[in-house]
């Protein structure tokens, strides 16, 4: 099997499964911080997803998307955390 085939039929479905697990945690909660870490994990997985897809499609430009996602997910988590702490 070629590299592209292994990624498209091996890595991407597995990453989707992992995202699904994180999504179940996002829906179930139970507390707000639980949902925030689930969102953070989904963003981290999206970075991995984009990176793997960049290799499969031979498009290095997609790496920039992964970088932007990394920056945004960090900022999002920090913002969530500081608002949670200020709320009480």
């Amino acid at each position: 099997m070629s590299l592209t085939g292994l990624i498209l039929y091996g890595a991407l479905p597995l990453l989707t499964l992992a995202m699904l697990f994180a999504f179940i945690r996002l829906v179930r909660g139970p507390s707000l911080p639980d949902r925030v870490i689930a969102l953070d994990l989904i963003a981290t997985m999206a970075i991995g997803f984009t990176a793997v897809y960049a290799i499969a499609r031979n498009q290095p430009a997609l790496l920039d998307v992964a970088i932007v996602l990394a920056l945004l997910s960090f900022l999002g988590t920090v913002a969530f955390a500081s608002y949670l702490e200020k709320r009480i």
Partner: protein
Amino acid sequence: MILRDIVTIVLIFIGTSFMVIAGIGVLRMPDLYIRMSATTKVATMGVGSILLAIAVYFQELGITSRALATVAFLLLTAPVAAHMIARAAYFTGVPLCNLSIADELKGHYDLRTHKLESICFPELELHLPDMQVTKLRIPTRSVVSGKTLAEIDLRRQFNVTLLAVCRGSHVISNPDGDVELFSDDEVILIGFPEDMERAVELFQTTVND
């Protein structure tokens, strides 16, 4: 398949497995604080491995340096974000799972100022390992504020001894019975853990009128 492709596949496989483990971890672990180890450590390892695969696969200076910079950024930011969210969760009262055996932060956070305070009496704990030393701030409108130590009678009622009263920067150590307590004073207590719990409860009871 050339060597570059094999290394790329192995790195992607490692990264993807870690991602799946992180997903299972965040779903199955019993409380937030343990789930966090799955989302930060395991997921960072997974995404780092995948980004290394990019660096190996494309073999261009610009792409490799960007991939490595992203890995470094993730390694720096993941612990910061995790610490912030765990701290916020601890303040909002997210419970530990019932299998936890110790909460070492309990009583050390000042819930008003959000500062971590600890009183260390290492020698005291060495000599008296079964005793507990606690520092607590008397809340506004506590039932004990305005009363003297003789009126509260901690020693006889709770079997707890008051070592000192801190009022602002002023410390009244080894106070006698005439010393009056006010809200916002900080008291240092020593006693057996089970007695201490009841005494702390008294201090935190507020007048409801």
